[in-house]
């Protein structure tokens, strides 16, 4: 009756706990591995943010030494040195962008949702998919190694503009033991994965002992190589992003192939849920933009080793900025499009109403992605590039607001006339729309070149990116976690804790970041360890303290989430297959959590994903796979 599930293209059905849970090629396990690691990095990035806020609330204030770390690092008076402060904000941004938001959106939900939502048993390239996680570990380890190197981790901002980033933070000293151990373990795990699936001797897979030996030797070679290349925090930063770029590419190739080739019967492109569309478009962005970042990182590394002079030593510093933003501006959309897509899935489910303007939503995302490649110069209006170029980029940047606006109006129209259920994921999704509007509109100020002259490099920018990335992407991620958690872990999350987390986060988030707009309008500069010697800004100390207290409260507001996340896994009520009465395949056709291979039988899709409150049926939902006896009058 049912065809045998194709479990694993490489080694047949998995045997042993190692290949089932650790070195798994199952897209769901890989997604969860990414989820755990990203959330750990989220905690680290959040703690770094607390250090930033402590410094700005009490700059040079001997009565408020930095707690714990001040004593641990043996700073004079417990006060943070300015170069350490530079390191803290550089690493906060780097970790949040490259190790939290991008993996959370692209890798976690890309992995989890794409096969389930298009009716596939797994990704197109399962081994490659696992590799994208295990090869990501060494990238993270190199980045973390920076913290242990003499002369601090990278301190030139998350943009690492040369010539500042070309300055050596310390000589070519030997690495301390801690980063060596971290890097060895990460590389050992990565090579272990390769051995488990990729290395054959005389036509047979190598045994455990040989694997361990091989991985050990390879990892040792890797660590020696990494030490030679990354001798200080900044070179570690470059190398880490280079490795991470490869990892992103592995994922992107996989997502594109899966969406194009593995859709189940009846799942036409325009019957795909918008989250799959957004992840598909994001994967194309990653595929086209990341190689440029890789090239920039290689050039920077060679400059750093004094082998070349692309950017410094008589080179052209602006070239780095062009290359970096050619990647990092599309990366902004990499960090928001999947959140938009997932919110577009969640809003109709809880409004019990079809998404308003499905095709315009797709076209809007596609045009955002296209325009995303021609607006990078708006990060460089004041960089000294040709002022004529600035006008060009101003026009394209202004017009990227149009498709974003279309999406916002469509979300509102989706809610209009709905029958809204205010579940925790829905609250987070509405918060996403609301915060994204603020973040998006403040972006228009920056696209206007003369306004940008004043507000660039002020706290207005900080406010803007946090409204987009935290208020936008992170609320999107929270919505998605609350929404798909029952599917992922087979348990319901606690609603009360969820509401507490949402309300506290929403309030403290706005207290923290809205005030930054006001600082920005006053020209308050970013990246200043101390501002009290400026007549212009000294009197903003109380306001900074307010922001800092709000930020501490924001950090504490995540505690209910942590309790909920871990606690529900242990004590949560078992989740039914479709707790939200949603239409899409991951809810209607598989259990919670889905088994390996996902579908007992590959489903056949008859209609679009958003047929809520259809007049054809009595209930207010109509699954994509349900066969109606009478021909449905609904289009879709």
């Amino acid at each position: 009756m049912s065809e045998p599930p194709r479990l694993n293209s490489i080694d047949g059905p998995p045997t042993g706990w190692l290949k089932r849970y650790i070195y798994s090629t199952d897209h769901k396990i890989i997604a969860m591995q990414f989820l755990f690691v990203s959330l750990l990095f989220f905690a680290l990035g959040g703690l770094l943010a607390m250090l930033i806020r402590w410094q700005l609330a009490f700059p040079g204030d001997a009565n408020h030494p930095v707690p714990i770390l001040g004593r641990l690092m043996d700073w004079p008076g417990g006060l943070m040195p300015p170069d350490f402060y530079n390191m803290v904000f550089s690493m906060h941004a780097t970790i949040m962008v490259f190790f939290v938001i991008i993996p959370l959106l692209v890798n976690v939900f890309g992995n989890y949702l794409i096969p389930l939502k298009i009716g596939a048993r797994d990704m197109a390239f399962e081994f490659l998919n696992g590799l994208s996680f295990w090869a990501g570990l060494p990238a993270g380890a190199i980045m973390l190694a920076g913290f242990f190197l003499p002369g601090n981790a990278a301190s030139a901002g998350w943009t690492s503009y040369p010539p500042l980033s070309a300055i050596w933070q310390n000589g070519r000293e030997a690495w301390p033991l801690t980063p060596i151990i971290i890097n060895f373990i990460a590389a050992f795990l990565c090579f272990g994965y390769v051995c488990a699936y990729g290395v054959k001797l005389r036509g047979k897979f190598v045994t455990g002992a040989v694997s361990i030996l091989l991985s050990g030797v390879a990892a040792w070679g890797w660590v020696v190589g990494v030490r030679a290349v990354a001798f200080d925090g900044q070179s570690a930063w470059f190398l880490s992003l280079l490795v991470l770029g490869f990892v992103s590419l592995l994922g992107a190739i996989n997502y594109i192939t899966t969406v194009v080739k593995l859709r189940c019967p009846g799942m036409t492109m325009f019957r795909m849920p918008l989250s799959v569309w957004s992840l598909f478009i994001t994967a194309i962005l990653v595929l086209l933009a990341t190689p440029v970042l890789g090239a920039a990182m290689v050039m920077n590394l060679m400059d750093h080793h004094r082998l070349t002079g692309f950017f410094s030593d008589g080179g052209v510093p602006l070239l780095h900025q062009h290359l970096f933003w050619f990647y990092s501006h599309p990366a902004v959309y990499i960090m928001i499009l999947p959140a938009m897509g997932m919110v577009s899935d969640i809003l109709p489910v809880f409004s019990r109403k079809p998404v308003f303007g499905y095709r315009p939503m797709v076209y809007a995302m596609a045009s955002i992605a296209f325009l995303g490649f021609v607006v990078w110069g708006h990060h460089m209006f004041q960089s000294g590039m040709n002022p004529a170029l600035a006008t060009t980029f101003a026009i394209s940047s202004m017009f990227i607001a149009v498709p974003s606006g279309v999406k916002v109006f469509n979300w509102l129209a989706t809610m209009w006339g709905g029958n809204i259920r205010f579940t925790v994921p829905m609250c987070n999704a509405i918060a996403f729309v609301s915060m994204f509007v603020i973040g998006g509109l403040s972006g228009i100020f920056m696209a206007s070149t003369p306004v940008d002259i004043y507000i660039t490099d002020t706290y207005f920018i900080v406010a803007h990116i946090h409204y987009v990335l935290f208020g936008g992407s992170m609320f999107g991620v929270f919505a998605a976690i609350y929404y798909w958690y029952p599917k992922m872990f087979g348990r319901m999350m606690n609603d009360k804790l969820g509401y507490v987390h949402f309300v506290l986060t929403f309030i403290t988030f706005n207290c923290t970041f809205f005030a930054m707009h006001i600082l920005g309008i006053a020209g308050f500069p970013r990246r200043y360890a101390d501002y009290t010697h400026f007549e212009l800004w000294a009197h903003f100390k109380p306001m900074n303290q307010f922001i800092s207290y709000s930020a501490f409260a924001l950090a504490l507001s995540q505690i209910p989430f942590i309790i909920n996340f871990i606690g529900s896994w242990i004590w949560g009520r078992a989740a039914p297959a479709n707790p939200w009465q949603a239409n899409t395949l991951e809810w209607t056709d598989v259990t919670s959590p889905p088994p390996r291979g996902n579908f007992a039988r590959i489903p056949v899709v008859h209609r679009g994903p958003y047929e809520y409150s259809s007049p054809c049926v009595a209930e207010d939902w109509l699954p994509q796979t349900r066969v109606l006896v009478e021909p449905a009058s609904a289009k879709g």
Partner: protein
Amino acid sequence: MVLVQGAIVVLMVRYRHRAGRKARYIHGNTRLEVLWTIIPAAILGVLTFSSKQVWTAIRYAPESRPPTIRPAKILVIGQMFKWNIIYPGADGEFGQYLVYAKPTDQWWPDRKRHGGVNGPRDLPADQVEFEIERYNTIENPLGKVYDDPRGKDDDYEDALARAMEVPVNRPVDVYLTSKDVIHSFTLPNFRVKLDTVPGLMGVFTFTPTMMSEQLGPPGYFEIACQELCGQGHFTMQGRMVVISQEQYAAKHEMRGGKADP
């Protein structure tokens, strides 16, 4: 923005869940989609073109203003962690700066170029590099090219970290470059800012309309660096004083002959 937030709240209240009610079954409306594409596009188009005019006035002033208006010109060289201010003197033109003797220059290429200071060719080899470093950092920290005729009357000797003086009610062209890393020359009170990039010369224009004296204490405007330039980034504070046109002409435009009329 307020409208959208208001709309969200209204929709949330109006269409909250009620038992037994079914939501409307609507897939979209092409006319509405077109409407909310074209209206924002039109608004943004207007914004773009009004922005462009202001931008041109700030960044293209030296090329586009009538030749009868003579701007005050000032060269600012960013350096970790101070602002160096150079005035062009009577001819209104700057000489060449930031050209340094290289560690291999045992002979200066020619004596005149380096202000009559002898190259360290007579010194033992191990002292040469030190001597060149000393020359570059102490004797000629701005890397001035002494044989450039345009630079003869430049006011550069006290350039290091001095206060910048500009005339009131007269356009000021600020030329910007950097000695080491990227800085950003910012006058928060005047809403102007531009990065100083090593190897590039940027220029912007502004016109102060009020003298510092009229401002009252502290009697100067602050200059800040707003592009991360290292651990002393936040200490890169400068001062700008707006003085009368007569004072400015007497102090900064008489050197090396009479100011051009």
